[in-house]
């Protein structure tokens, strides 16, 4: 019940990021790949250029 309270803070997307070692600020910088797919950028194989892993 508590998680569903009005305006209760939820972290679902944030947790996904952490779990997948996503660095949020690189989404905008790197953008999607040439096929328009974000997955490689967001969850992909390489490490980000700044080395932060969230």
């Amino acid at each position, binding site marked *: 019940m508590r998680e569903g309270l009005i*305006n209760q*803070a*939820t972290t679902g997307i944030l947790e996904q990021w952490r779990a997948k070692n996503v660095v949020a600020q690189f989404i*905008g910088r790197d953008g999607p790949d040439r096929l328009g797919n974000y997955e490689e950028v967001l969850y992909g194989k390489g490490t980000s250029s700044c080395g932060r892993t*969230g």
Partner: protein
Amino acid sequence: MLYETLPGGRVRCHVCQWRCLINPGKLGVCRMRINRDGTLYSMNYAEVSSMAADHIEKKPLFHFFPGTYAFSLGTWGCNFHCKGCQNWEISCVDIPRGSQQLLPESEIELTKRYNCQGIAWTYNEPTIWFEYTLDSAKLAKENNLYTVYVTNGYATPEALDTIGPWLDAWRVDVKGFADGFYRQLAKIPQWQGILDVARRAKEKWDMHVEVVTNIIPTMNDDEEQLKNIATWIRDNLGELTPWHVTRFHPLHEFTHLSATPVSTLERVYRIGRKAGLKFVYLGNVPGHEYENTVCYSCGKTVVHRTGYDTQVVGLDGSRCKFCGAELNFRT
């Protein structure tokens, strides 16, 4: 932004109505603004504590793009320290190590990625990362997204006027209607400015305004305060302004209190309706009939709600599709 420099390296912050006078090296009451050598810095720009694709009804906004999702973000800290805060894990702390940053450009990307129609700065007070929400709101409007502040309403008129051109909705708490209550709840000495700024949001900036009062047993459930809130809404924001009266759950420093009985909320509903408000809703009581929007003119249900599940069945733009009455919806 929105501060003045004073002799002796001091500054005065004008983002919220505390208008903190801050000595060099010190923080404002929000603990997110620091005076470094006479310059006021925001420490939590883009620092995200919580992030989710929420139903707009969770804010709650019932008359604003019903059935859509709002990309919802909060940061750390708050300028209020309410004893019953349900989000105290993020509002009563400093920025922890490992906090994530999300720049405005990325925020827009994620909003689209999660099929949200707009952005809500919510969970804790949006003005405490004011510069971030301002930059984000400008970008959001360029991208045809709606923008929402879920706020305690303690922004200054200057702050409101700064972000006003890029903000669509002001979902404001009127937590009570007595000096003693605001002082006891959050040590707020002058709360009436909240009302002035809410009215300004509507009148000057044509924002969509909805009001929330969390009904806390023994604190603000007396007839006088509730009647005064309802009357103030009617006289200043209009009888078509939605008023959400929500169920309190014992949390943080108010664990000794009990959850609000549903019968109390139903009593508040009647107070609001008797005062002339056309739309009073119960919150945190999923499945209750007073979650629905019923046309005050013809009596037909135009929006069915069960919790955050929403079905629009009787709207024609902002009007009742059955009888044509104006219902104050933004769609």
